[in-house]
């Protein structure tokens, strides 16, 4: 087993502690909040994720363009993306947490999330077991690390501005409605 240097591990732990505390304060490590989102009765999860996406996008693209970071893009493989998304969504509706929020729910003391966590480890083991046979299907039609700006030959900035404006407009409308 490969082990990274201690500094990197401590950095990961610190990032995780901040992430876990944010998820807990955002109430998204709660079964009720996630199910209310999935049943379209509450938008807390969408607000958290939309804001994280838009705020994150501004900084990440700025960091990459100034040479202080590089993109880390997952490949566009339609079979694996569509198949994985359907399996993932179905499982999430049953367990009531996503992977990160399962761990946050465990930290919050939720016993059902512990069962979910063991299920997640089992799912990962089943993936390892099935991987050699699935590999040709998973990698079929690989289009590589495609981004929306690259595919349309545009700058990322109009996209980022669009995201930020959409989220900001949603937040303002939400505030005015109260």
């Amino acid at each position: 087993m490969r082990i990274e240097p201690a500094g990197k591990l401590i950095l990961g732990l610190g990032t995780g502690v901040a992430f876990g505390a944010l998820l807990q304060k955002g109430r998204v490590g709660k079964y009720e909040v996630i199910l209310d989102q999935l049943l379209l009765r509450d938008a807390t999860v969408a607000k958290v994720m939309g804001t994280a996406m838009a705020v994150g996008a501004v900084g990440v693209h700025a960091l990459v363009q100034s040479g202080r970071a590089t993109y880390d893009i997952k490949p566009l493989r339609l079979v694996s993306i569509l198949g994985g998304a359907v399996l993932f969504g179905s499982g999430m509706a049953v367990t009531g947490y996503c992977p990160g929020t399962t761990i946050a729910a465990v930290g919050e003391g939720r016993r059902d999330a512990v069962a979910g966590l063991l299920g997640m480890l089992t799912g990962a083991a089943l993936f390892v077991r099935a991987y050699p046979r699935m590999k040709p299907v998973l990698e079929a039609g690989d289009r590589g690390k495609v981004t929306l700006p690259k595919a349309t030959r545009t700058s990322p900035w109009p996209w980022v501005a669009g995201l930020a404006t959409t989220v900001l407009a949603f937040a303002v409308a939400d505030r005015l409605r109260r």
Partner: protein
Amino acid sequence: MNILEKKSWSPYAVGAGIGVLSWISFLTAKKPIGITTAFENTAAGLGQRFAPKASGVNAYLAKNEEVPKLDWEWMLAAGVALGSWLSSTASGDREAERVPAVWASRFGSSSVTRDVGAFIGGALMMFGARVAKGCTSGHAISGTQQLAASSWIFSPVMAAAAAGVARALFGKAAARAH
């Protein structure tokens, strides 16, 4: 009052916090926030250590660039539990129902049934995450903010599948409960 003692923060503030945390990840670790790769690495590592034959780990390792490791992302995943524990302990937000009401409205109040459901859902969700190489963190936050085409396909399909299955399972029962 210390803000950590509050039970919840605005979802927009939490989302912005996660967005800034993703800048920090890119800047310090040169990596986006993700959760489920660590589960795949752990399952492969446990298989290698305890059940090299039954887990099929050798065929997996021969065909995959992922190796068992203890790294930044593994510590991040562990840190989420710690951060959520610290946050919920500081605010006293630790009295979750053993079986959530929405779940009980459809499947009854047995904690065993709930745990079995959480386990199966967790396994399905993790299998799907590894098929698609990402989850609500790796695709729906980190991937969308980088404008990855794969993540912009994964996220809506995953959300629609989750909402559809949640509606099929709980739609009627949840309506009755209200």
